């Protein structure tokens, strides 16, 4: 999901160059699609069916990613105002308003190139009710076919056979026919399996990268840096050779950092001293991404694990796409996305991260826009505190509405939180 602002490019690592190239090529393809009529599918990150789309040679467009990129590029304020002018209330998810505003402004994507219109709106994750409404709006805009994959919620953290079958049946009977109709191609399971095999290879390396943060010092920041690392696999590249190469290179680079005992790469260069290790729950704020990150690095805080880097797939529990069961494993993937998990599973996961990654504590960034994430977070905070005995902190901001980022307030809370950790360590000394 990187763009020219990617702060991690300071390292000039091979993986970063590759990611940049991959993204540039993808947006070139999308720009060309407007003219050559290549089929495009708009879809969302959680539960994305990238391998299936690629098996039909369809190009994915991800409105959420475009919205967060608009936030990072300082465009979201203007886009949100445009949507509000049209009557979208202040309480509507700001990703949606940002996307609507971008459409009104000519649908120019993050690279400055025009995005193609969708031939199909594929809603493959229903844990977020807003997604349904979002695509209803886009259907009005584009007057194109819409397909919905209903993904049952995982209330108790288990996927039953009937849940899996329910999703597979929809894939077979609704999604695949819609893609066949859009592209004029027949479903090719062998090709899908090849893509899924590559996905699994990339996923293996991604997990190694994320788990490298168990080392002290952590060679990566698994939240601010993490969003760049998950970029390719969460978006349009899962199942591609590019993604396999990217994660292989990234893993090698990170392992080298571990060998050298180096801390993470940060926008200012490298973090010299790891003073605090924290786990973070919730998405980052995108409009003040660097400022937000700097509030952590200024205090010597490294995020060693985050739940946001699991929204496009939870892999560190052992799940891998399985080429021998293509549709079943796609179904399991959709069912297993982080925000499709119930609160007990999320509490388990956070508690495990705090312990496994030897974190001093955990922080929740509660965003105004996203109920899927934010509901129940205070309850989670208390529960994780109780289970781990490590203190939790709570900050509030938003995804892409800059009006909801109060730097003084957030900095105040973060400083207080880190000083609190410091106090605890010193056992009340000074």
């Amino acid at each position, binding site marked *: 999901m990187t763009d020219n602002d990617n702060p991690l490019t300071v390292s000039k690592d091979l993986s970063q160059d590759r990611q940049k190239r991959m993204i540039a090529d993808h947006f070139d393809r999308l720009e060309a699609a407007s003219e050559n009529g290549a089929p495009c599918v708009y879809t969302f990150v959680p539960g994305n069916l990238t391998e299936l789309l690629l098996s039909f040679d369809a190009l994915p467009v991800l409105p959420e990613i475009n919205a967060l990129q608009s936030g990072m590029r300082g465009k979201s304020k203007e886009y949100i105002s445009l949507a509000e002018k049209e009557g979208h209330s202040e309480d509507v998810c700001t990703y949606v308003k940002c996307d609507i505003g971008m459409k009104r402004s000519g649908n120019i994507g993050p690279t400055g190139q025009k995005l193609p219109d969708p031939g199909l709106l594929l809603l493959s994750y229903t844990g977020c009710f807003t997604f349904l409404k979002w695509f209803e709006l886009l259907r009005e805009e584009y007057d194109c076919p819409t397909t919905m994959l209903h993904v049952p919620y995982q209330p108790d953290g288990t996927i039953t056979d009937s849940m899996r079958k329910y999703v597979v049946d929809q894939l077979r009977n609704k999604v695949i026919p819609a893609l066949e109709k859009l592209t004029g191609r027949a479903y090719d399971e062998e090709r899908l399996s090849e893509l899924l095999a590559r996905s699994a290879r990339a996923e293996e390396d991604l997990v190694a990268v994320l788990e490298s943060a168990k080392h002290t010092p952590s060679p990566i920041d698994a939240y601010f840096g993490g969003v760049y690392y998950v970029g390719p696999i969460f978006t349009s590249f899962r199942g591609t050779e590019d993604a396999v190469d990217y994660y292989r290179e990234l893993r090698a680079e990170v392992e080298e950092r571990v060998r050298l005992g180096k801390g993470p790469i940060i926008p200012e260069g490298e973090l010299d001293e790891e003073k605090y290790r924290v786990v973070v729950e919730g998405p980052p704020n995108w409009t003040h991404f660097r400022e937000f990150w700097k509030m952590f690095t200024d205090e010597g805080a490294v995020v060693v694990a985050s739940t946001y880097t699991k929204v496009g797939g939870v892999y560190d529990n052992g799940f891998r796409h399985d080429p021998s069961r293509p549709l079943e494993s796609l179904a399991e993937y959709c069912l297993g996305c982080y925000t499709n998990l119930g609160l007990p599973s999320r509490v388990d996961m956070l508690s495990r991260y705090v312990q496994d990654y030897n974190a001093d504590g955990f922080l929740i960034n509660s965003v105004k826009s996203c109920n899927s994430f934010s509901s129940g977070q205070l309850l989670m905070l208390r529960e994780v505190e109780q289970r781990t005995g490590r203190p939790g902190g*709570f900050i*509030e901001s938003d995804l892409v509405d800059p009006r*909801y980022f109060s730097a003084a307030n957030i900095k*105040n809370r973060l400083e*207080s939180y880190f000083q*609190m950790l410091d106090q605890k360590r010193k056992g*009340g000394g*000074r």
Partner: protein
Amino acid sequence: MRYSVGIDLGSTTTKAVILDEEGRVRGRGITNSRSNYDVACEVALTEAQIAVRFSVVEAALARRGVAAERQAAQVEALQRAFREQQYRGELVVLKDVIGGLLESLHADTEQTRAVLGILDTMDTETRELYGPKSTRKSDFFRDIAGSRYLTLAEACSRDGGPPFEALAGLFDKAILDVENTPSAEGGFETFALDAAHHMDEPIPELEDAVNEALATPLEQISSVGTGYGRARLPFDEGHIRSEILCHGLGAHAMFPGTRTVLDIGGQDTKAIQVDGEGIVTSFQMNDRCAAGCGRYLGYIADEMNLGLHELGPLAQQSHRPARINSTCTVFAGAELRDRLSLGEKREDILAGLHRAIILRAMSLLARSGGVSDEFTFTGGVARNPAAVDALAGLVKDNYGDVTLNISPDSIYTGALGAALYAWRGAALAVA
């Protein structure tokens, strides 16, 4: 005396607390935060040093065998005389600044005469202002002088003088300069002896005691700053603590049994849980919006043309509190006018508003982990009796019987916590 100091730079007031080498509180100082934080810090520190020196005077009198009651009366009279001298000193600065303004504005003779007349009257009123039975609504020069100046200006223009706005505008412009001239307030050394000489019945031992206080060296060995403006404090990074930690430790020092702290300040509300050592274990604070904070009461007071301290007692007269949900500071005026126009009583509206503020605080308390025994309420709003009543009632309803602590010095809680951090730091450095 070697001392440690904590300074709490709040949005409304800046506080300083001085501890001696044994960690005992020796002096407290407060000033309005004004537009210049550096000056506010300097003034608050000077005020705390003044308090230290007064305590030296008291101790010196005791050593000279002066009876306790007499001691207290002498120190009280000396303090009043001191404040009077200080006020006079600030009036001189105000006169200079206004004189300069009149000149630069090429004011006509009528206006000049009117303004100088007002300032002269203020000068002659000073004695009475600091008389034995006098009460002042504020200790800050801006408020005391402002209130007198504006009253006199109103009378002057009513009697055919220049328009009120022109006169008031001069004061508004001048007061910023006066406040940002740190020397305007002056320290103990500037006015103490003068004050002793101007007292009605000084005892012979007093002058010696004042001289002893003057000769006592004050040496700062450590300092910690806190508060919203802490990044601007003249301290390096290692000497800055978050106000949440400072409030937790300060509340613990005042009431060692404290487990939950509620602080309602000018623009934020904090709910803090502390352990048996005063170390913060969890906290919540209001997010982007200052609804329901002290500033809200400030707007309401302005809107009702009342002093901030008058709101609580008026609200306590209510028998049928209005049901109010909104605590939006921006809409406070509209809400109030709307209800007044519907015929609701001022005290009922005010009681409803106080309850609404506390309801908001209750939500933060719940989110931070609830209210545990003992519960300490701090910050400027803790001085408002109607807010305290509402809080006590709601805490009892929701959490049962809990000891509610409110210190008369609660406004200094953050500064005290900061001072304790400074003191511990100094002690560690020595060890």
